[in-house]
């Protein structure tokens, strides 16, 4: 960038937007790769550059690695193999010694901010201190979605326009220097003019802007996201990164003028030409190499077991039983364990995993809702909308959030009266938690009694979207889903389609707990819609023509799994015949038991619950947690995720994967040329990879790439959280979400022939980049020979696990009760 001599503003703004955190407002929180801007580089190289440039910590601490090694969590043999492969056999001893004995070192000083820091040197002036408070307040007030009672008075036609209006029409002002005011009011002023005053040297403009914006990446990132995604605000505001920078530069000029009485010169004149730029030439460094080797050793200490486990051929008794029911759940790692329990308590059942929007992208508009919500993966733009009717209002009021308590007389009256009511409520909520209007419940996303406009009756359009699906569309999407999970024959009498969502209270990041494949919403509508489509006789006829013959007696039932409370609800049961209903009730009782046990397994990570108790009893306590104001961890969400297994469930059912795996069902036999596989990987790499990497980076640098502890968070304008009064917005995950997470990149294993897999991933360049640059790891298990291959530097290389034996878990329940640590892979008894 520094090589450019002429300043291309458009280009720089684009670059800035690219490097800034790309996190949506809280209500649309979706996991993504925190360092997405570096994704075109190989993982370890990208991490080093990101660290040297922006000052992020990008690996776990050296001490932590060394400690894990001594505790046996990093295998010596794996560590040695990692060194050998990367550095060569002759370097083994030297590096091993280095890695084990090196003391902790300081990370290199980042280049970001160094140039702009020269203000301090030149004029003993901390510009951030002068400017940030006013800037943050203006932006926050402008973007505010409903906290302030007195809304931003000067319109929403752009940050700068509104600010100009406000300054022009007021007796008092934010800008005090007459030069700054003139620049603001002169319509011909360009950002370049301000930079000429501030920086002076054109070749330093870009560096200055990076320094300036990365002093508050949270707000800048939010503005950059909203510029391209204005629909994320219910109360629409026009905003752009350009306006933000313009405003900030004006405030800087104003501050300098005020503090220096106009006698100051541009910053560019205060540094030599040789002053380092932002991006340095990449130079391999011993420190980063060491950390990257540790990282590989940590990851493969676990992955090695997993590959070994997947190579084991499960015992089959050869007899094909009639299945009692089939359940299709989301691939989400939180469904990994519940599927294990369903299979345990209903051995004649079968479970499947697929992305939780069930191949049906649409918007959902609940009754009484003024807006539509997207319920499919974030990058997809749906063309359909499903409307809800005959539903009851599911929004209760709570006077504690009312604006009356903030006024003079209202506040006076309320604190004299309701104040005492608060005392009682507070005592009740702390001593005996229960449902409150403030909580988020996955079950409230949709009213089970409401009607959904699933079939497209006439092609009328609603805001440019088609209401409901046509027969052809329904058939195609259901066919797609069934084929991609390998369910095309041997249909059971019941097929459950189960979405998932979460419940919590006092949780600003609630959207991150719901289904990622439904854009951070609960998956209930999707499940119910797909089940209804599956029961549609015409759809079945069409499917039959396409070779999928679903018996008439088979019923699809939609449902929702609340992963926090471990509860399930099922939809449209009144449409079942009497005898089906009875069978369903039997199935439901199996689900209940599975849910109890799932809660019990989860409880080993909850310090307030004694895991040795009876499952049903623990389940009650787990439910209570979700309603507790004081519980910052209603559930662990995706913490500890490390795997994504794509293949037949029958081939991984024998393994205990400790809630760490996304499980996607896939049958290579139905899909010899990888057509459905491509669809799966196209979604899995960015979605699971995004979740995984957000957890990774939030863990290794919770201060800069994560949101820090959530305990002091303050909600800013309903769009984000910050610390205290005047902090920058915090992006990434709060500490309370990642305490128990180990920063491993995700390993995606695919059951198919290596040549087909290779061809498949190469078919889609962006997906290939994820794998080739090793932001996610990819392994291939040969379906016939069970040989393993691992993708390294863009090629599938045969892999022989070092692990020679996977232990059998004789009594899994005991193992689970005994520890709250991550567990190795076990063979299930």
């Amino acid at each position, binding site marked *: 960038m520094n090589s450019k001599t002429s300043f291309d503003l458009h280009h720089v703004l684009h670059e800035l937007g690219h490097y800034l955190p790309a996190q949506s407002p809280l*209500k649309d929180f979706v996991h993504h790769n925190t360092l997405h801007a570096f994704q075109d580089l190989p993982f370890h190289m990208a991490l080093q550059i990101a660290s040297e440039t922006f000052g992020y*910590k990008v690996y776990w*601490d050296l001490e932590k690695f060394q400690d894990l090694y001594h505790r046996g969590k990093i295998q010596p043999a794996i560590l040695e193999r990692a060194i050998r492969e990367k550095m060569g056999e002759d370097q083994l001893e030297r590096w091993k010694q280095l890695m084990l004995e090196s003391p902790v070192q*300081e*990370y*290199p*000083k980042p280049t970001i901010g160094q140039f702009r820091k020269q203000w301090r040197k030149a004029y003993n002036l901390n510009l951030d201190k002068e400017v940030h408070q006013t800037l943050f*307040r203006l932006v926050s*007030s402008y*973007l505010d*979605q*409903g*906290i*302030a*009672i*007195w809304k931003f008075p000067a319109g929403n036609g752009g940050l700068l326009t509104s600010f100009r209006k406000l300054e022009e*029409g007021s007796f008092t002002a*934010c800008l005090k220097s007459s030069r700054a005011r003139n620049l603001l009011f002169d319509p011909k002023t360009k950002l370049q003019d301000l930079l000429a005053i501030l920086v002076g040297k054109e070749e330093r403009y870009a560096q200055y802007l990076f320094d300036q914006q990365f*002093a*508050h990446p949270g707000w800048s990132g939010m503005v950059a996201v909203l510029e391209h995604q204005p629909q994320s605000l219910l*109360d629409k505001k026009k905003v752009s990164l350009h306006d933000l920078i313009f405003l900030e530069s004006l405030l800087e000029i104003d501050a300098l003028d005020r503090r220096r009485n106009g006698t100051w010169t541009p910053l560019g004149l205060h540094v030599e030409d040789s002053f380092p730029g932002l991006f340095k030439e990449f130079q391999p460094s011993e420190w980063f190499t060491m950390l990257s080797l540790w990282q590989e050793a940590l990851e493969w200490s676990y992955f090695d077991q997993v590959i070994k486990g997947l190579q084991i051929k499960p015992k089959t008794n050869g007899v094909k039983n009639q299945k009692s029911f089939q359940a299709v759940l989301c691939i989400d790692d939180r469904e990994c364990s519940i599927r294990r329990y369903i299979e345990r308590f209903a051995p004649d059942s079968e479970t499947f995993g697929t992305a939780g929007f069930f191949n049906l992208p649409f918007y959902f508009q609940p009754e009484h809702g*003024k807006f539509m919500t997207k319920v499919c993966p974030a990058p997809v733009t749906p063309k359909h909308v499903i409307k809800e009717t005959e539903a009851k209002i599911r*929004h209760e*009021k709570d006077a*504690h*959030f009312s604006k009356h308590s*903030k*006024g*003079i007389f209202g506040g*006076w009256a*309320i*604190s*004299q009266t*309701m104040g005492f009511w*608060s005392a009682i*409520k*507070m*005592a009740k909520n*702390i001593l005996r938690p229960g449902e409150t209007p*403030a909580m*988020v419940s996955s079950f409230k996303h949709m009213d089970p009694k409401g009607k959904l406009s699933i079939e497209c009756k006439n092609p009328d359009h609603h805001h440019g979207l088609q209401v409901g699906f046509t027969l052809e569309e329904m058939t195609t999407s259901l066919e797609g889903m069934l084929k991609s999970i390998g369910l095309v024959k041997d249909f059971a009498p019941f097929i459950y389609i189960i979405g998932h969502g979460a419940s919590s209270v*006092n949780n*600003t990041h609630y959207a991150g707990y719901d289904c990622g494949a439904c854009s951070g919403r609960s998956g209930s509508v999707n499940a119910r819609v797909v089940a209804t489509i599956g029961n549609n006789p015409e759809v079945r006829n069409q499917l039959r023509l396409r070779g999928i013959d679903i018996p008439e007696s088979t019923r699809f039932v939609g449902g929702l799994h609340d992963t926090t409370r471990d509860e399930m609800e099922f939809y449209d049961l009144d449409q079942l015949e009497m005898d089906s209903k009875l069978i369903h009730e039997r199935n439901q009782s199996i689900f209940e038991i599975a849910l109890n046990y799932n809660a019990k397994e989860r409880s080993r990570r909850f310090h307030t619950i004694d895991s040795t108790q009876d499952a049903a009893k623990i389940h009650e306590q787990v439910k209570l947690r979700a309603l*507790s*104001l*004081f519980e*910052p*961890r209603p559930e662990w969400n995706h913490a500890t995720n490390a795997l994504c297994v794509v293949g037949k469930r029958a081939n991984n059912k024998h393994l205990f994967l400790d809630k760490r795996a996304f499980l996607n069902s896939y049958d290579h036999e139905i899909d010899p040329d990888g057509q459905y596989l491509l669809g799966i990987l196209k979604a899995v790499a960015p979605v699971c990879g995004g979740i995984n990497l957000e957890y990774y980076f939030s863990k290794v640098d919770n*201060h*800069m790439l994560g949101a*820090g502890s959530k*305990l*002091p968070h303050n909600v800013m*304008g309903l769009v984000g959280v*910050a*610390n*205290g*009064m*005047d902090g*920058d917005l915090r992006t990434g995950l709060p500490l309370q979400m990642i305490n128990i997470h180990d920063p491993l990149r995700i390993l995606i294993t695919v059951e198919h022939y290596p040549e087909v897999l290779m061809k498949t991933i190469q078919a889609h360049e962006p997906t290939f980049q994820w794998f080739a640059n090793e932001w996610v790891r990819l392994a291939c298990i040969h379906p016939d020979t069970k040989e393993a291959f691992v993708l390294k530097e863009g090629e599938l290389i045969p892999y022989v696990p070092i692990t020679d034996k996977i232990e059998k878990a004789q009594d899994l329940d005991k193992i689970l009760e005994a520890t709250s640590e991550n567990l190795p892979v076990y063979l299930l008894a």
Partner: protein
Amino acid sequence: MENQLIISSFVLIPLFGFLASLLIGSGNETGFSRLAVGMVSVHLLVIVVFTIGWILGGRNPINIPELVIYDNGSYRFLIDLYFDGITAVYLFVGAFVTFLITRYSRFYLHMEDGYKRFFNTVLFFYLAYNLTVLAGNFETLFVGWEMLGISSFLLIAFYRERYLPVRNAVKVFSIYRIGDIGIILAMWASHHLWHENINFITLLNEETVNKHIAEHSGIGLFIAVCLLLAAAAKSAQLPFSSWLPRAMEGPTPSSAIFYGSLSVHFGVFLLLRTFPYWENQLTARILIGAVGLATTLVAYPIARVQSTIKTQIAYASIAQIGLMFVEVALGWHVLALIHFAGNAFLRTYQLLVSPSVVAYMIRDQFYHFQPKEISLEDTFPKRLEYSLYILSLKEWNLDRFFNRYVFHPIKKIGRKLDFLTPRNLLLYFLPIYGLGLVLYFNQEWIPVQVRHYVPGLFSFIGMMLVFKAFSERNYPRLALMLVMANHFWIALGVSFNETFDFSQTLIYLSGVSIAGTLGYWLLDQVRKKEPDHFDLNQYYGHGSRFPKYGLFFLLTALGVMGFPISPTFIGLDLIYSHIHEDQYLLASFAAISFILGGIALIRIYARVFLGPHIKNYHQKALPSS
């Protein structure tokens, strides 16, 4: 006797709780929560039972002379407890809220790094709260008051590895301390008014009070203004309001208990407690009412423009406390107490559920959105509306006010002494101080006309040294020594005033000297280990590498500033008793240097030991976060 036992237990139970919490290991979360919740439950129970009995027994105020700490015949320093209706309400609200908050925090803070520190600080705060509420005289109240200030500082700076919490903690502490000037001066004036350290219960005797105050109406008003200063600072009234939203840096429950409910209502408490002092002074009552009313009118629009939830609650609460000031000034005390309790509960709960506002409001909007609601201000003329908006957004420049008109001038004066360094300080100090001593023993050398001004002059020199300590940028050790030197000058200055026992000076200076020397040594250790990162220009966060040094330096700093752990704090009151009632200047110089000295010490502690660690080997937050 029974009363004495029970009322003492109101302080002793929290004291025991706090001390016991120091002994529990930092990993033992259950230990802390059991101790804290258990202790507060017992406390709450005793309070409720006792209060019921007390109400049934006729609600007579009870005074318990607890513990004589110092007595030389003419002067007594007494820890004295007092129980009346105001105490009862504050005790109950405090115990109830703390009970809920400790239980809340038990789970909320799980796995947080500073779990132990949090509970230690909350229990320390609780001790301070009860001591203040039960205080039967100014001395006891002041002990509690100082402890409140420190616990407040520690909780705001709870996230001490970040820049903003530490900066704001220092800021809030500074404003608190400015308010403390009021208490010190009120104590001093009151001492002269009554010729003893008066008990609050004596004030109930209207006749005596009226007689005294009528005789010295000037002092009476002076005391009232001083009390108002202290009350306004503690309760975030004008012109101090801007500290309250900035204090919201700790974990939410601590913000709720401190700044939502308990700490922030202490101004109201002080006014209620000292009502007899100014009851019959119309000027004082008008003044107090006016401050309250003005605060309400200013805080209201500020609350309305806040786009962050916690600051909105903070300003809304400030407005209500303003009304409480008005109520107290009007003499509507029962109403004020009800108002206090209601407001405390309401704001605590609002803060606790503040993270829920996202889910709640977004859903509310989703179902009930109206593109733009017309608010009251939209009906104003545009220019007025915009002006008021900007002004409120800038908090009426209240935050800048202190920097510009208080701290900045002090720094400017202090910089005039920039020629001082740790090396040459003694070269200047010893000869001049020696000269002072020589003059002290040969007072006849000084012309009579001049002698009158000597105490003032010496304490002025002391004050200048503190100004320098406060503005020092380079040498932490120098700043520390300057604060110590100030105490010596004050002692010398007051010694000229009248002859008194040398042992009194000794009490005053012994704490300063011992703690100061220790503090110097600790700083020197850090300097030797981190020579490149040792000045007062920025926050260095050395506490991360040297936690022990940090802790002990904090303790020594408290010793030097006359915190009730060193004899200095009795000595201070003692020395003050020798300042004559017409020596307003001397009293002010001494009070100002005492206050600023404390700020300067906390500033040294914060800059050397707190903030983002200068070393880049572990995770570090951006300054803006």
